[in-house]
């Protein structure tokens, strides 16, 4: 078997294992900590009788291991259980929200990724001169600012002062694509700002690293044009680190979504998770945690695989 295929198979297996371990961690985090779920739900004033009833209803009297496996087994089959707070099926109420969140994240990624790479290239091209400095200063500012500040600044200026976009991202069925895009414009802008800084900074570092290598000097000493050098010698070697950067930041975007959805009251996964943490609705929290972890692990896995695929040493073994 080709070593690359073997390595990728290994990575995939490792990713599955990691996801399994993460699910266990989420389960442990919600079930075995000193805070008893039933106690949390009913509060300190609950009578022993009602506590016992709730425990029995939630299956808390069974051993933790068997509860974990039945939860996991059901989750794999798409059954995430029912919410404690309203008794609805979690999988079906999550479906809509998940697609909303993915729509938001994908829109943000479509804007942020090319923008970050172009700005990163500009920073490299004018390294040490004013465009580079402006970009790095703005980067420093955006990575130090909490997501919700960006959100409210955008809201304050773009919707309250100048009324360009709606302040709340209300979406409902039957909206046209254009209406939908208009509704989520503000959260998309904020998400782009959230990831842009990191992505740009890391892209810049990755490309600079390649541009300073000896083989770029060799190409320069062959009398090639700057553009040819970048396209033929720098890019093939820069793709892996840049894709890596992009994937890591998309993973980061998944987290940014939580806060941004709350700011703009957007009916997505983040809002759903935060609401149910306040309600101490453990099954929903577990299910959301699992989905977020899966997306996060998946993106990291893609980054890993891309860097394996683009490594000439692995692709063409001795």
């Amino acid at each position, binding site marked *: 078997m080709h070593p690359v295929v073997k390595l990728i198979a290994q990575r995939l297996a490792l990713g599955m294992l990691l996801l399994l371990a993460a699910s266990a961690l989420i389960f442990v985090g919600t079930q075995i900590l000193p805070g008893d779920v039933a106690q949390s739900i009913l509060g300190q004033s609950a009578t022993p009788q009602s506590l016992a009833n709730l425990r029995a209803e939630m299956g808390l009297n069974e051993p933790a291991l068997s509860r974990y496996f039945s939860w996991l087994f059901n989750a794999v089959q798409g059954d995430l259980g029912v919410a404690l707070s309203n008794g609805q099926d979690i999988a079906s109420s999550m479906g809509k929200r998940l697609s909303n969140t993915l729509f938001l994240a994908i829109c943000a990624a479509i804007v942020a990724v090319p923008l970050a790479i172009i700005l990163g290239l500009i920073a490299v091209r004018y390294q040490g001169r004013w465009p580079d400095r402006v970009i790095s200063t703005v980067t420093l500012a955006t990575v130090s600012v909490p997501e919700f500040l960006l959100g409210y600044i955008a809201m304050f200026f773009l919707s309250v002062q100048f009324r360009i976009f709606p302040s709340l991202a209300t979406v409902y069925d039957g909206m046209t694509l254009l209406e939908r895009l208009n509704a989520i414009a503000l959260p998309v802008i904020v998400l782009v700002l959230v990831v842009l800084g990191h992505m740009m900074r890391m892209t810049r570092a990755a490309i600079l690293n390649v541009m300073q290598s000896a083989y770029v000097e060799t190409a320069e000493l062959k009398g090639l044009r700057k553009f040819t050098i970048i396209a033929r010698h720098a890019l093939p070697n820069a793709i892996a680190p840049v894709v890596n950067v992009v994937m890591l930041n998309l993973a980061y975007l998944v987290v940014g979504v939580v806060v941004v959805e709350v700011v703009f009251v957007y009916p997505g996964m983040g809002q759903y998770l935060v609401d*149910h943490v306040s309600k101490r609705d453990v099954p929903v929290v577990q299910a959301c945690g699992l989905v977020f972890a899966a997306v996060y692990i998946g993106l990291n896995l893609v980054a890993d695989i891309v860097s394996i695929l683009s490594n000439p040493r692995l692709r063409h073994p001795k």
Partner: protein
Amino acid sequence: MRIPLAAALGLFFTALYFGAAIFAAWIAPYGAAEIIGDSWESWSWAHPLGTDSIGRDLLSRMIWGGQTTILIATLGTLISFSLGSTLGFLAAVKGGWVDQLLSRMVDLMMSIPSLISALVVLSVMPVTLPVLILVMGILDATRVFRLSRAVAVDITVMDYVEAARLRGEKQLWIIFREILPNALSPLIAEMGLRFIFMVLFISTLSFLGLGVQPPMADWGGIVKENKEAIVYGVPAALVPAFAIATLAISVNLVADWVLNRTSSLKGGRG
């Protein structure tokens, strides 16, 4: 020694915020929960930042809130740092199964974004200050662990550490005399970044309503209390958010400066 402008600005604001937090009891004009006027009054000489959603002096709330935020962030940083760096050094020096076990555990913890982990845990734990600090400290210790392990591993393979081991030095001498002095500058810079992260983390949790609980004030909570006013053009929610950002940028500038200054000492080789 000349301090560059950016670092001087960073130092000034960092000192200002920490000073305000430490001396809050003396400089805050009103109590944190004292209601002194109508809701969302605009600024006046008596209330330089105006009032908040239920008519409390915003400046006073900002000062008290800063105290809470900075206290939690500092304690969280201390926990994440002492835990992360101790375990990181241990893994690097011991190697073998100790390293494997700790590293794999950290990998696992980092496979879930820390905000998500925190939300999962906080859904069953009582939300009190000690719980918040512990949860944030432990989750963040994973990053400190990775850095300190990487730094220490780079140093342990150096010939001077080998020379010390061959001399017959004890483990403690090697950690404290050979490794630590050389690992200090990246770790100090990292401490600044971890502190920023803690400030952002607790503010985010409070903003989501899962951090510091009212009536206590903290910056993220103040944003949450005043966010409805944004729609009416009242920028009260922007004030604490702005404070968070300036504190974070200032600490970042100081950390950058520390890293540059100390690493140039080391770069003087050859």
